[in-house]
């Protein structure tokens, strides 16, 4: 070490320590921003994947046909006109009591099908429901 350098030994030590601190700070900041951006990408990817899975589970349910078929069991067969072709349904429910009507509507609402037409008419105390849907 030259005499000149030795004369400023203390300052050099402090500067080196300060530089080390700066490097450590830059390293931490760099890592934080990289990780944050990676985390936010990972979070959004994960969120997106979860959303797709949830949507697929609901609207791509393979058991939906079976569930739709169960609509027939809500009321007696004599009150139903059922016409299902593949994944399309046209059904007419006639002479439904209030309770039957309520049950049917709740069931329809909970079915993950695309409602193309829902026609409800009340005649006296009975209800007439026409349903067109696909899935």
């Amino acid at each position, binding site marked *: 070490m030259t005499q000149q350098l030795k*004369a400023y*030994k203390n300052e050099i030590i402090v500067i080196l320590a300060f530089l080390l601190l700066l490097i450590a700070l830059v*390293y931490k900041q760099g890592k934080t921003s990289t990780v944050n951006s990676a*985390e936010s990408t990972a979070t959004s990817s994960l969120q997106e994947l979860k959303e*797709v899975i949830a949507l697929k589970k609901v609207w791509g349910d393979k058991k939906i046909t079976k569930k739709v078929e169960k609509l027939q069991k809500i009321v007696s067969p004599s009150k139903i006109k059922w016409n299902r072709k593949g994944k399309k349904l046209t059904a007419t429910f006639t002479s439904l009591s209030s309770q039957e009507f309520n049950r049917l509507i709740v069931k329809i609402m909970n079915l993950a099908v695309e409602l193309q037409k829902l026609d409800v008419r009340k005649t006296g105390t009975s209800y007439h429901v026409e349903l067109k849907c696909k899935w």
Partner: protein
Amino acid sequence: MENDKPLILIHSQMKYLSDTSSEGVNIMLTPQFYTIKRESLPVQYAYQAKRIAPSLFEGLLENTQDYTYFVQKEEDDWLFIAYDIEKIKSFLISKGLALTNISKMYFAEQSAAQFKAPVLLGDNNALVNLNSTMTVIPKKVLQADEKPMKIDKSFTPKKGLALEGRSKALIGNTETYTLATILVLFSVIYFVEGSRYGGEDAEQEAQMQLLLEDYPSLQSSYKRESIASKYKVIDKKERKKRDVIKSLSHMIFKGSTLTSLVLDDKSFQANFACKDAKTSKKLKDLAKKEKFNISQIHKSHDVKIEGKL
């Protein structure tokens, strides 16, 4: 250890030193660089003695303000040494001694007892112990049988002085090491914090992998996007339809009956039969809240509610 370093005797006739130990040296000043006084004082501590030192040298020194004082307790007396540090520093530099290279500074007086023979100072002078006081005398007054000696590390006294401002350093050693330690400590903390970052990312990555294993058909992001866009449209539309049905169901209460409802992909229309104007008003308020279009059926309390999907 300070006492292990080479000890150089500093005197006015000394030669220029071109090569000093890079590990540092100790220096011992001859009386040419200081003035001494021995006094028996009723003080107990060195700091008390040091406080009265300037007054002891009044009359002896030209300007006592330029001097720094060193005190040391001897058997019965106090040893007072006055020295001009700036003069000493200039002299040392002029002789090639870098101040940064000097570890400790001592006075020959401190090791007086060890000077049992004269020490030659250049060609003309000698340093001798005269009645326990170190004195520089001309070499020629030495007796012929007196064999000169040389000083070595063993002459190094216990108590020495660090040359204040021996370097041009703005920061003292203690401050330097304290500050450096703090800065290094913070650096370590930042490094550790930085390296610890990213745990959550790995966790999410693992969760993602797990989901993809369960749904291998969603491995491709294009496929995911296509599925999402397809189902999102359906989901939005169908939720809207169901929300409308739910809202309309809340409008069925005592006195208000749903007489018809037609709902398709684009719109809906519902007719409610109300028993009186009050019920009709309540129904209309509810429909207004849902921002549906309302119309009163002519000559009745019945209400028609419609809207777009």
